């Protein structure tokens, strides 16, 4: 079949409109600002750290001073330097894990939604199984086996979100399966893989973006939580989740050592959620106007 004959994928333009429309909402703007600020802080913050993240600068839990503006932590290390250094790993692991989970879930969802066979049934039963109990239980089981290593954490995030993405993608795919442009592609002998990735995938970009944002916010929380439980980053690493755990006993005398990382985690997760919510609202609005 010749390329020129392929039907124009109209929703691509709709998708561009989606981003623009989402950006007009105030919550998207606020969320985007917060997210960008914290990602920037996590990435280039370490360059501005006054001290080494693991070096000792004073007595444990001492208050703010000129050399350590936010005081020192449980071992007498500079809170500000550790704070500036502590976001990168959380971001990297959360982002990689989410991307992997979304990719795997999308592939599974596309395959299941498009085929009408037993594969779909079996895969969806397995998805039900994974969704039958809280993700953290599975995470803890895997961490017992694999130990606290980065790739185990990435796998944990990917595996716990994969079933949810698979569900969303599967139902969107099933809606598109019998649409005209898919039937046309089938009748002109387009290879199945091409139909899945070039015809169907661009059309589910909206729900997929929302899904990615939701899961990213969740995995930031999950990774920070596992770090807090002592099952993620290991001492003496500087890490927002681990910092909260290490300094919780000094909450009264040196509150900044706990508050700074908590504010950062909260602002990052809320920021990503606000952007996602904006996109979801814009996408619902666009769908409404298209349907009307």
């Amino acid at each position, binding site marked *: 079949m010749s390329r020129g004959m392929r039907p124009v994928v109209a929703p691509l333009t709709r998708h561009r409109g989606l981003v623009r429309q989402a950006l007009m909402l105030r919550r998207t703007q606020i969320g985007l600002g917060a997210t960008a600020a914290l990602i920037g802080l996590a990435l280039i913050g370490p360059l501005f750290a006054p001290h080494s993240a693991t070096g000792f600068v004073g007595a444990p839990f001492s208050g703010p001073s000129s050399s350590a503006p936010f005081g020192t932590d449980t071992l007498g290390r500079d809170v500000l330097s550790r704070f500036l250094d502590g976001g990168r790993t959380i971001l990297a692991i959360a982002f990689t894990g989410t991307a992997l989970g979304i990719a795997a879930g999308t592939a599974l969802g596309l395959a299941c939604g498009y085929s009408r066979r037993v594969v779909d049934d079996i895969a969806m039963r397995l998805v*039900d*199984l994974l969704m*039958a*109990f*809280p*993700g*953290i*239980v599975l995470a*803890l*089981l*895997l*961490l*017992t*086996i694999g130990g606290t290593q980065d790739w185990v954490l990435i796998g944990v995030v990917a595996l716990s979100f994969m079933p949810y993405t698979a569900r969303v993608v599967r139902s969107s795919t099933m809606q598109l399966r019998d649409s005209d442009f898919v039937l046309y592609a089938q009748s002109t002998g387009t290879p199945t893989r091409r139909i899945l990735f070039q015809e169907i995938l661009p059309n589910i970009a909206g729900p997929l973006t929302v899904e990615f944002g939701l899961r990213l*916010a969740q995995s*930031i*929380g*999950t990774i*920070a*939580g596992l770090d*807090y*439980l*002592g*099952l993620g980053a290991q001492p003496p690493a500087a890490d927002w*989740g681990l910092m*909260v755990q290490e300094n*919780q006993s000094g*909450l*009264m005398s040196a*509150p900044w050592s*706990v*508050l700074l990382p*908590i504010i950062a*985690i*909260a602002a990052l*997760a*809320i920021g*990503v*959620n*606000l952007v996602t*919510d904006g996109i979801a609202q814009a996408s619902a609005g666009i769908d409404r106007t298209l349907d009307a």
Partner: protein
Amino acid sequence: MLKAILLRRLVGGIFILWLVSVLVFAAIHLLPGNAATILVGRSDTTPQEVASLTRQLGLDQPLIAQYGRWIKGLVTGNWGTSLVSSLQVSYIVRTRLENSGALTLISMLMLSPLAVIIGTVSAIRRNRAVDHVTSLVTLCLSAVPAFAIGVMVIYLFATNVVHWLPAASILNPDEPVWSQLNLVIAPAITVALAMIPYPIRMVRATMIEVLESDYVMLARLKGVPERRVIFRHALRNGLGPIIQSLALTLLFLSGGIIVVETVFSYPGVGYALVQGVSQRDIPVVQSIVVLLATFCVVINLAADLAVAFVTPRLRTALR
């Protein structure tokens, strides 16, 4: 018809439990090399130590026999011995189960009425200020991880701002948890705050749908007072989905208390699980994971039953 559906759910639940047991069992035994070597986990392990642990765990027997023995133990209450404390796992779990039960119960008692009230008010005052504030607050609460909410509760109510609550929930093991409920309040508030966004959203969505339905419209047209419309007609018809969303909340909550118990050093099953994972105490982890999975399956079944009983149409079908 309905009985058949419930029966199928029951069989499905048992099937899921069987799969979980295989997964939990296989997970430990798919470890590369001899599990005992990894379990001891130190470089200065003597071969004798490994051999004795291998025997103790029954790792020298065929896999099927090991699985059979493990399942038999799970069912008969012989859950093995903790590798760290040498206590019976069933003893560890039994002493902590009541504490976790108390925390779960009190959190649910706090959040369920609140979620129904806030969700209903948001639905009635849809797109007004109350609704917008609620949606923003639930969005923030659902984004912030449970441990951060817990530490903020400690900061606000225990250590820095006001001193109303204890910062850690070290229970006296010789007294029942019900006589020291003051230590349960702070973790319960945390669990309630962390878990409330989902039921609020579900109640709101359900109530919006019900309030726009024909029979509510008819009741209003007949001149039934608004208060009566909401309580008699709308809430009662929305009860099924609301119960289902609270059941799902309970299911998520069983994951949430794992973290919250750790924040407050609350001696529950979740804290035991986290300690088990960080010490790689495999028998403890295995037992608690299976226990939590069983809890979730039972909750799912109970929710199906409860929905069948409160939905008039389904209730008559059950007779």
